[in-house]
Structure formats: structure tokens, C-alpha cells
């Protein structure tokens, strides 16, 4: 529904039909371009304001639209940006969280473009107004805007903003306290030391809030504070909070500690980590709640890299070994121990880690095995290929024959990665059989994946390799008794054509297409025609003229099937365009 010349552009806004009003909002930019800045400000903006008590999806579209950069031009310059502010302010007060969040995001974007002289009056005052509202929705939005307003505000306003933020941290409704806790980490980097210390009490209060959903947000705030405080202050201010959260009664809080652990270690530094954080991590690895253990076990490598090797051997490894036999398969599947290999070096890995890898590689749950295979690169670099391959291959083969096709599909995805790391010789000997057998899998999705995988490997190993090892397999495939499996030949051809130069396509791949174009099954002939159509752009013009066009012309005269004729014709027209 584009506004036509002569139509009043505002009509959409007052329509009874909600979808028409929504279209009006989405076309606002086109309307603006049509009517020009003056009319846009005088006529269209009032219509937009009238939509402010409309349905949520219209408000959401409006909040999104008005944040876009072009509106500054549509309004006639930066001096008019404030017109948008009052609309967005109303949107930031709305009940619906989605609309409010969008309005806050758009307000943040626009704030950067407001000239400094008017920023105080238009933007900072807006934020303070929201924070003093009687209702919790605007107060909640205000928290998200404080970090945006603060850098642009005068010193007096900055004090006011901080004061209102502190009030939000003690707000009676959990909804506002949650917004405050989320916003704290964005505010911390902006403050000087004196102001930062003012917020410490609020930070501590939020970390012991009654509501679990507020407390669990403290961890990210710990990271933010630690990055700006001195060593002594980290010890006195941040460390107690981390320790408390690490043994919080609520598993959700402990989960947050586990999932943010590498950031905590980074920001708190070696000293505190060595003395205080390691015991916390060990406890999390042994937590009673499986969700927490899952989060912690995925961080084993990341955290260990920041510790001393002795600590890892003494404290972390025993836990990792226990986790490898955890009752919960989710925990075992998230255990990240592969990244420890570079830390230990060849001998260390052999001594401490190899057994662990092999145990996980034989796990009964496919996801656990897949996790190991996916992270092999770090280990192969350290250990070398031979040692691994004798254990690796049986595991890969077993996964490739798993009853669940999604598991087979996943292992197939890893083949190019393995091929790259392990080299062509290894692949030829061991993995090529696997790939080719997947071309004949009973599940179509896997057959299709196999063609893509072979293409990616061909891209790595080169055309010569493909001609020597893959093309012969295609020959066999094209002679399969079952038509479903012959069809995949054509997919294979299309796929390889992406990495073959024209001459090679013509000499090695096209013969299959010609053969299958005379296959007794019409479905295959149709696909052959479609394949030809796809290949035409990749072929040399001379070849198209000399071989393709006559072939297709002949086809159109001899074939009896209507659909084959249709697709052959399509290909022919396409070919003729090359002339």
C-alpha cells in the first residue's frame, strides 16, 4: 500500500483496520520522502502521535521505525530530533516489555545525534521524568537509559541521574530492580572513581536481594566493577560477592557464576583467582544441580588456561575425570577438556589427558562423542595424527552408522574439518569410503549432505584429487539399480560444478548428465534437464553452442514425457541466451 500522488498520506493512520494502520507505520519513511520535511513535521507527526494508544504490534513497529537514522533527514535536520523524543518517551512507558525495550533502544540511538546544547533539556530531562513516574514500567525503562544520558549530561544532572539510579536499585517492585541490576554493568565503565564508589552499596544490596532473578544479575556486575577497581578494592568489594554467589542457595545464581567464570577470572586477576576462585570453581564442578555442572564443565579448558599447571593437575583434573562419568549425559556432553592439550604439551597430554579423551570417545551417548570429535584440532596439533587415528576411526565409523539419522548427519558435518586437519592421504584411506557410503544412505537429507561435504573436501584437496577419487564413485553411483540413488548423481554433479573449472565440467561431469538424460525413469530425465539448466552459466559459450543446444533440441523432438519437455525447453531458452 504505497501512497500514490494525490492520496492523502495520512489516511492510513486513522483507518479502522489495524493492518492498514500497521502498513502506515511501516511505510512512514516513504511517506516522509513524498511529502517533504515541512509537511512531515506539520501533518504526519500529529497522526503518529494519535497512534500512541494503539495495539502493541503497531507500537512495536513504531518504536523500531523511529529509531532509524533517516528520520533526522525526514524531519529536516538535527534540530528537530526532539519531536521524535516525545513520541518515544510515551512508548517507553508502555506496559508491554517488547515495545518498551525497543523504544529504549531507539532512544539510545537518537540520543547520539542530539546536539549537545539541547541534549540536557530534551534527553536528560526525559530520562529523569521517566525515573520519577508513579508506575513501574517507565521507571524500568529509565534504568536502561541512564548509561546513555550520563555521558552527555551536565555535572549537576549526572548527580541527579545517579541518585535516581540508586533509588531504582531499592525500588519496591522486582521488575525495576531487575532493570537496574541489568543496567549497572553499562553504567560502571562511565564513572570516575568517586562516583563508582557511591554505587558500591547499591551493588552489594542487589547481590543479596530476596528475589533470585535480581541476585543472579550480580555476577556480570562483578566483572564490570572488578575491571575498574584496584587490587585491594577487588578483594574487599567484589570478591565477597563472588564467593557468596558461588554458594548461593539458588542454583540459578550458581549457574551464572559458572557460565561467567572465565570473565571473572580475567577481571579479578591471577592472585585472587589462585587463592579464592579455584575452590569456588571446583565446588561448581561438583554441584548438586546438573544444570550448574553443565555450565561449569563447559568452562574447564577456558578457566584452566588462566591457571597454573600444577593447580590444574591437582584440583581441576580430578573433577574432570568425575564429570566424564557423570550421571547426566548433558554434563558429559558439555565437558570441554580438549582445550587442555596445548597447556600440557605432548607428554603431559599423554600422561594426564589421553585416557579421558578416549573414555569420552566411547561414551554411550552420541552427543558426548560428537563433542569430542568437534574439538579435535587442539589435540591433534599436540599429539599428532597416528596416535589418535587408531582410536578415532572406530568412533567415527560407529557414529556414522548410528541408528539416529541426525547423529549421522552431525558426524558428516565434521568430515571436512577432519579432512583438512588430517590430510588427503588419511582421508583417502579411511574416510572416503564413509562419505561415499553416505551417498547411499536411506535418509535423503544425508545423501544431500554428502554431496555438499564432498564438494567442500574437493575445494580443500583440489580438482585433480576430485577427478581421481570422486569421479569414479560417481560412475558407480550412476549405475545404481534404484532410481532414487541414481538421482543423487545429478546433485553430486551440480555440487562439484561449483568447484570445477568449465573445461573439467565439460569433460568429466557432463557425460553423466547425458547418460542420465536417457534414463528410462522420467523423474531422472527431468532432473537431468534441470541440472543442465543449472550448469549452463558455468560452461563455455562455444561448448554450449556446439553441444548443449543440439542435444536439447534433439531431446525436445524425441522425448515423450511432458515434464521432461518442459524443463528441457527451459534449459534451451537459457542456453540460447548465451548466444
Amino acid at each position, binding site marked *: 500500500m504505497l501512497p500514490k500522488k494525490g492520496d492523502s498520506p495520512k489516511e492510513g493512520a486513522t483507518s479502522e483496520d489495524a493492518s492498514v494502520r500497521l502498513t502506515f507505520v511501516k511505510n512512514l519513511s516513504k511517506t516522509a520522502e513524498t511529502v517533504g520535511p515541512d509537511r512531515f513535521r506539520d501533518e504526519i507527526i500529529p497522526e503518529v502521535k494519535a497512534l500512541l494508544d494503539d*495495539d*502493541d504490534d503497531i507500537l512495536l513497529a513504531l518504536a523500531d521505525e523511529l529509531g532509524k537514522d533517516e528520520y533526522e533527514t525526514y524531519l529536516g535536520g538535527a534540530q528537530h530530533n526532539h519531536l521524535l523524543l516525545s513520541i518515544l518517551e510515551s512508548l517507553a512507558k508502555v506496559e508491554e516489555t517488547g515495545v518498551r525495550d525497543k523504544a529504549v533502544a531507539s532512544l539510545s540511538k537518537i540520543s547520539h545525534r542530539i546536539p549537545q546544547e539541547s541534549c540536557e533539556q530534551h534527553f536528560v530531562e526525559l530520562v529523569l521524568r521517566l525515573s520519577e513516574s508513579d508506575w513501574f514500567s517507565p521507571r524500568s525503562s529509565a534504568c536502561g537509559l541512564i548509561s546513555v544520558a550520563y555521558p552527555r549530561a551536565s555535572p549537576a544532572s549526572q548527580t541527579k541521574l545517579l541518585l535516581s539510579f540508586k533509588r531504582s536499585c531499592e525500588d519496591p*517492585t522486582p521488575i525495576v530492580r*531487575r532493570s537496574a541490576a541489568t543496567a549497572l554493568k553499562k553504567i560502571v565503565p562511565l564513572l570516575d572513581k568517586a562516583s563508582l564508589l557511591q554505587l558500591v552499596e547499591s551493588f552489594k544490596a542487589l547481590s543479596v536481594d530476596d528475589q*533470585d532473578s535480581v541476585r543472579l544479575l550480580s555476577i556480570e556486575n562483578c566483572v564490570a566493577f572488578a575491571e575498574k577497581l584496584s587490587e585491594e578494592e577487588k578483594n574487599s568489594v567484589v570478591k565477597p560477592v563472588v564467593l557468596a554467589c558461588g554458594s548461593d542457595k539458588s*542454583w540459578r545464581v550458581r549457574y551464572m557464576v559458572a557460565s561467567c567464570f572465565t570473565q571473572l577470572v580475567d577481571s579479578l586477576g591471577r592472585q585472587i583467582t589462585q587463592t579464592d576462585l579455584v575452590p569456588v570453581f571446583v565446588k561448581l564442578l561438583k554441584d548438586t*544441580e546438573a544444570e550448574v555442572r553443565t555450565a561449569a564443565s563447559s568452562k574447564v579448558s577456558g578457566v584452566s588456561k588462566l591457571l597454573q599447571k600444577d593447580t590444574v593437575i591437582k584440583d581441576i583434573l580430578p573433577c574432570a575425570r568425575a564429570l566424564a562419568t557423570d550421571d547426566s549425559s548433558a554434563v558429559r556432553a558439555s565437558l570441554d577438556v580438549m582445550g587442555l592439550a596445548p597447556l600440557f604439551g605432548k607428554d603431559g597430554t599423554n600422561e594426564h589427558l589421553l585416557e579421558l579423551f578416549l573414555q569420552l570417545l566411547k561414551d554411550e551417548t552420541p552427543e558426548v562423542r560428537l563433542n569430542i570429535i568437534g574439538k579435535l584440532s587442539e589435540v591433534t596439533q599436540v599429539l599428532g595424527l597416528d596416535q589418535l587415528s587408531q582410536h578415532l576411526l572406530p568412533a567415527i565409523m560407529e557414529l556414522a552408522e548410528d541408528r539416529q539419522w541426525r547423529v549421522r548427519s552431525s558426524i558428516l558435518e565434521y568430515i571436512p574439518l577432519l579432512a583438512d586437519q588430517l590430510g588427503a592421504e588419511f582421508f583417502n584411506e579411511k574416510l572416503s569410503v564413509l562419505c561415499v557410503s553416505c551417498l547411499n544412505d536411506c535418509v535423503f537429507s544425508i545423501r544431500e549432505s554428502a554431496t555438499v561435504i564432498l564438494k567442500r573436501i574437493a575445494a580443500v584437496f583440489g580438482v585433480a584429487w576430485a577427478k581421481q577419487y570422486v569421479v569414479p564413485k560417481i560412475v558407480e553411483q550412476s549405475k545404481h539399480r534404484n532410481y532414487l540413488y541414481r538421482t543423487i548423481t545429478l546433485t553430486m554433479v551440480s555440487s562439484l560444478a561449483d568447484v570445477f573449472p568449465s573445461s573439467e565440467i565439460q569433460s568429466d561431469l557432463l557425460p553423466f548428465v547425458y547418460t542420465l538424460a536417457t534414463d528410462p525413469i522420467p523423474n531422472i530425465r527431468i532432473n537431468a534437464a534441470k541440472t543442465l539448466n543449472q550448469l549452463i552459466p558455468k560452461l563455455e559459450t562455444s561448448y554450449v553452442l556446439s553441444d548443449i543446444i543440439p542435444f536439447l533440441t534433439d531431446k525436445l523432438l524425441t522425448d515423450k514425457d511432458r515434464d521432461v519437455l518442459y524443463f528441457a525447453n527451459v534449459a534451451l531458452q537459457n542456453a540460447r541466451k548465451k548466444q
Partner: protein
Amino acid sequence: VNVEEVIAKANEYYESNASEWEFSQMFGEEDDPSSDSDTTGAEDNWISSLAFDSTGRFLAVGYNCGQVVVLTQQEDQTYQLYTEFKSHDSEFDFLTSMEIEEKINQIKWFPYDSCIPALLTTNDKTIKLFKMLEKEGAEGGTEVVVKPKKVFEGAHAYNINSVSFNSDGETFISTDDLRINLWNLNITTEAFGIVDIKPENMDELSEVITSSSFHPKSCNLFVYSTSKGMIRMADLRNSALCDRYAKEFEDTESDIGGFFQELVTTISDVKFSPDGNFIVSRDYLTMKIWDPRIENKPLRVVKFHDHLVPKLCDLYENDSIFDKFECSWNGTSYRLLTGSYNNNFYICDAFGSHVTPMCAVKPTAQQKPTFPHPNQHLEASQKVLHTAWHPNQDIIALGAKDFGYLYVRKTENDPK
């Protein structure tokens, strides 16, 4: 919490006075004398749920026909119509070939005061979140528009009996016969199953969940009651799955014995007191108040249905023994309200000994208010199943078939 102090304070403050409460209002359409209440459709106008919001400004009334009526408090304390809307329509479940009724099983208001009031309503299968906006009407006055903001469906294989908001303002639970789900208000596509009592072999099914409720202030605690008279308290902090409950409350001293024992111990309603310190459970014959620290016996048993014990046989014959009565705390956690037959209701001191029986009936010039007495003929079809108590005033709402009653406590006699 020192329980002795609580009891002493309650006894001191309230005096039982039969005329302490007076009739304030009645709402509902006057009975059409020619209609027979047994015909289908006549039950459509029966009240199925009552709830005051957190300020007492609004009273929501849900009906068997899926309609919700919202009343608002005027300056003179009476309630007038604010708005009404159709919450649920009946649906046909193709998989089970059963009709899903539109009856509103429960209504709960969003726990925090907001410029746009919001409430959850549920029928047997679907929970909906509605918001009420005041807009400028066509003629310049204000009109109230009610919009369904979220629909939470497809998560319950069995019939939903309760919904309850968490104090975090972000999540809520919905409970059916065998499972409890935890939802986020902003996410309708997923829910977490946190309690599941379905046995591996359904032939072994012996217990269903009858009601559940979050703690008013602690975001991690909730209670649920079962048909075997058990109350379990679960702590969301302990683990992701709450099948291993934190506490289990059971009154093992039974009064009745015999065939009806199990039928009368099934709990029809369970909730925390507004101050969060106690739990009340309503079974067929009593209300029991529990101290969360003591699991093996209730703190007090409030009896008001002893006169029904000799009549249990009749009540079983006409299926009345399966009636599910609600109960309500008052705002200060000292008193309880629950309904009964003959349109009677009881206001009981939770920690004292006073039980004030009353009858919900519109007083006329000729008829003075009557009070229930044990020898009165039992009229089981006249029942007050649904109750609600204003959060900070002594105003109570009662639902008796298609009529709602509001009673107010007279305050002239209060100690100053």
C-alpha cells in the same frame, strides 16, 4: 514468628459479633422464575471464580460461560461495573474427541499495581493474559478496552485447576491434575515442567494435584495440595526439577474413618497467608492452618462442618461430597473465609476460636438475616463455592451459583 503472640493478638483484637458483618451488594441477574435450573444453559451464568486485585480497586468475576466481569470500587466502597469480556470460548479437542469447556477455573491479578491492570484467566487447557486500558471513548468519556495480550496453550494434557503469579513479577505457574508448569510472562512458546507426579503406569494412579499457590513474597517457594490430603512445599532454588519436594504436610489424625475418609480429606484449596507465615488448606469438613516449620500436624484445625458428618451418605448420593470449596485469608492474616451449603459462609479466626456463621442472602424488608443452625434442612444445591477477601479492607465477595454477594464488616464497634 512467635505463634503464641499471634494468637493472643488475634483474640484481643477481634470480638465475635453476629451482626458484625452486613450485606452490602448483590450482583447477577435475578432468577427467571420460569427457568428450571436443571436445564442446560442455565448454569452458564454461574460464577466459577472470584478475585480482588492487589489494591482492592478491582474485583474480577469469572463465569461458567467463559465471561469475565470486572467491577471497580467506588468512593462509597460499593462496586460497580467497570468492564466485561469473553475470556475463553469452548473448543473441540480433535485428539480426544472431547469438548474443552469455556468455564473460567481461576482468575489471578498481576501482583504489582500498574497503570494498566493485568490478569490471568484459565479454563481447562489454556491460560490467557488480559490487560485493561482506558481510552477516550467516542463521545468523549472514557471507555475500557480489554485486550488479550498473551495466550499460553498446549502445555497441559490434563485439566488446569490453578494459576499463581510469582512475586518476581515475571513468571507464573499453571497446575493440572498431574503436572505443574513454570512460565515466563513474555514467552508463550515454552514452559518448564517443574513437578510431575504422573506414574509410569497409569493404572497405578492414585493421587492428583488439586491446587497450588506461590508464596506471596519469596520467589522460590510454592505449595501444592493433593487428593490424598497432602500438602507439599517445593523450593525452586534447590534444583531445576521440583519433584523432590522440600516439605510435606499431612494431618495423620483422622476424625472420620471409614468409607468416606479418603473423600473428605481431599484438599480443595491451599494458599499461603498474605504475610507469608502460614498456610491454610481447605478440605471437605475443615480448614487447617499450618506452620511451615511443622510438617506432621497442623497448628490449628478449624471445624465448622461437623453437622455434615451424619449426612455424608446423602451428600455422597447426590455427589455433593465432591464439591470444591475455596477459602480466603483476610489482609492481616488473622481471619479466614469459606463457603458452605444453604448459601452459608463462615468467617473464622485463624488463631482464635471464633467461628461466625452467616448466610448469603439479600435482606428484604420482611426477612431479617437468618443464621445457620445445625438442624436446618441441608440444601446442597445452594452452595457458596467461591470466595474472595479484599486485600486491605474488610469487604468479602461470595459466589453462589449465578449470584455474587458483597458483605462489609461494620467498623463502629472496633476498639480505637
